[in-house]
């Protein structure tokens, strides 16, 4: 990195709900933007660049930035819209980081949103994320993808349905302590195991919900960041890793770029023992069962052994491995905004502002990720001190 060092100086998100019929999409964004600006103690006047993004086909728009920009008061600012399936929010944040680090801007605002109550099913109808000719005949969706992925994981690792349920219960326990989370259900292993079966071994509770929500962050270069806040969250490194649907699930059910991206970013930042050196994790798991494999790929568990950690009760906010203290994506999933929510939550952990779901002790480093399609990832490494 020879550009400017950068920091997140303000974060904001809406309270995530399944429906927000009381407001329109632009107002939803404005809620998160207001929160982020207030957190950064700035007004829209200070911002000189806005980066927007949502997963358009799930909302039924094309280029909605055009009418959302004036509604959040960003007329006359530089910027553009990014989109990349499930990793949209990740790409939005990465773009914001690049813009701030390029030296072209002083205060960059990144906004991502999704209002899934407005185009129910558009994602499935359009064969979301499915290639129009090749997989169009199959009802391909995250559900079927993760059914296949989890089926394969279970055969390889020997874990049982009970372990999958344990993961979901852990996520619910975390979500109950997060005031912004959508699903707070008071689950038990038994409840999860008796839930409606979507496609074995995926039950309804295992899948991420549909959410209306938005999240925003304000990013500044080093000098400016030190001036505006006492608690900057430094962006150590980030890496976008897409495999471009190059491998279909039929070819490799465990196809993912997360492990590759993490190894690369750890090497660049000199991290040799991620389990020790990273103190909080906000990882994008579209299905709770994916958390097991993701834990292995980011390096907190050995290959195909993560389920044992749940059996031993080692995962949780106050436990040895604080994985997804916010409750994660199975509790809250505004698709396009989800990766930004991960960055927001990771930042809150570092600042010690996560309130009820704060991980105890000093959080020096946190890792946030984005996931999309069939194994596309963006990885962010945030830290407390430069």
């Amino acid at each position: 990195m020879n550009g400017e060092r950068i920091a997140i100086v303000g974060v904001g998100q809406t309270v995530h709900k399944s429906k927000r019929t009381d407001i329109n999409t632009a107002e939803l964004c404005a809620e998160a933007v207001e929160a982020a600006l207030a957190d950064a103690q700035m007004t829209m006047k200070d911002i000189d660049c806005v980066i927007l993004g949502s997963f358009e086909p799930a909302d039924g728009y094309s280029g909605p930035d055009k009418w959302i920009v004036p509604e959040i008061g960003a007329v006359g600012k530089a910027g553009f819209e990014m989109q990349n399936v499930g990793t949209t929010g990740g790409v939005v944040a990465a773009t914001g980081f690049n813009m701030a680090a390029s030296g072209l801007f002083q205060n960059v605002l990144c906004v991502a949103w999704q209002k899934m109550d407005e185009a129910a099913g558009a994602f499935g109808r359009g064969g979301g994320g499915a290639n129009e000719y090749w997989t169009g005949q199959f009802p391909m969706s995250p559900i079927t993808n993760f059914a296949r992925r989890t089926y394969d994981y279970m055969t390889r690792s020997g874990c049982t349905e009970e372990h999958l349920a344990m993961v979901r219960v852990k996520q619910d326990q975390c979500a109950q302590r997060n005031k912004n989370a959508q699903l707070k259900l008071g689950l038990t292993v038994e409840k999860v195991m008796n839930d409606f079966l979507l496609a074995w071994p995926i039950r309804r509770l295992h899948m991420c919900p549909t959410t209306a929500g938005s999240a925003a962050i304000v990013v500044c270069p080093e000098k400016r960041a030190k001036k505006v806040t006492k608690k900057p969250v430094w962006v150590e490194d980030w890496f976008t890793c897409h495999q471009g649907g190059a491998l279909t699930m039929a070819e490799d059910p465990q196809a993912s770029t997360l492990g590759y991206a993490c190894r690369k970013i750890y090497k660049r930042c000199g991290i040799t023992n991620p389990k020790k050196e990273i103190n909080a994790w906000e990882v994008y798991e579209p299905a709770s069962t994916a958390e097991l494999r993701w834990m292995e790929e980011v390096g907190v568990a050995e290959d195909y052994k993560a389920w044992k950690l749940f059996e031993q009760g080692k995962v949780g906010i106050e436990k040895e491995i604080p994985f997804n203290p916010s409750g994660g994506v199975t509790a809250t999933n505004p698709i396009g905004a989800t990766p930004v929510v991960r960055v927001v939550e990771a930042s809150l952990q570092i600042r010690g502002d996560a309130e009820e779901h704060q991980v105890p002790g000093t959080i020096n480093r946190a890792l946030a990720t984005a996931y999309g399609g069939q194994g596309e990832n963006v990885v962010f490494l945030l830290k407390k001190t430069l």
Partner: protein
Amino acid sequence: MARRVGIVAVAQTKFEEKPGVHIGELLYQASRDVMKQTGLEFKDDGTGIDCTVASGYDMMSGPGGAYMFLGYIVGAWQREDERVIEDGSMAVYYGAAQILSGHADVALVVGYSKETQIDKNLIECLSLDQIYQRRIGLDFVSSAALQAMRYTTKYGITPEQLAKVVVKARKNAKNNPYAYCCDSLSVQDVLRSTMLCDPIRVQEAKPTPVDGACALILANEEKAKKLTKKPVWITGVSSCYDHHELGYRDLADCDSLVTAASKAYKMAGITNPFKEFDVAEISEHYSYQEPLWYEGLGLCGKGQGGKLIDSGKTQMGGELPVNPSGGVLSGIPHCLAGMHSVVECALQLRGEAGDRQVKGAKKALAHGVDGPAGQLHCVITLEN
């Protein structure tokens, strides 16, 4: 700009209707071309291309994450691969920012568009406000017509002046082997063509459908000098949003273009754009836009765009030739216009523009636009 970003290679496909070609083939052709020119491949050790930025609307190319199935074609398997959902000039902007931030040393910027598979207007209208504008049937064409009407009446721009823009574009396109439309038109032909959306006539609008792809390789200063003998430097770049509601702005002026241009000129140290630039490629999707964008870009005073066209100074051989390639009016696909401008400017500055070469071009101006009635502008200044 404190540091410079270099364009080391550019490529484009022939722009035409290609109903029998897969969208990936267009992308492969353009990206392979620039990779061959430089001998670069995607590498993860910093010795090749580090990242790629694409531009293209999802809803245009197919439902749901269409680029997911295209990224591997340029070679971005397990690599940094991001996409801007705007005009292609914004992808160049972001590619340059990635290099300035030091996150990448070499970036591949690609743009693709296949208008033959979809009705362009259907998709464009999806980016309009759904509560007010779509309800009254506005789309990009009708909002452009409103702007044309306002602009021509406020400043007394004549239909003949606008027709001359089209005649110039098609004449220039004859020298461009990649152009789609290069028919000999007279001012009368343009004025007699069918009315598309009053006051815009069919010949005054961008020909559609057209398919094609563009690609560029950007690099930081040090690497650009090693990679090519003729690097083209991006000296200034900026984008700017305007109001979306047409009623919020005076459509006869383009404030966001003025802001974007002044920021880019400041970075590049340009004070008198008309004198200092040797060539310009601007995105005129409709004939009225060329004189209007002249004004926004500061090439002439407010309301003087028509006179500048009459003067012939912007024709080939004039003081500042605008759109030697024929520009968008000769048929450049949706989303690609701005990137095509940068590609053409780079060719001009390298002296490789063939029959359409402006002799001794040293500084060039590229422009891209997106949104209804020019809501989002991007200005890029280049030097050799």
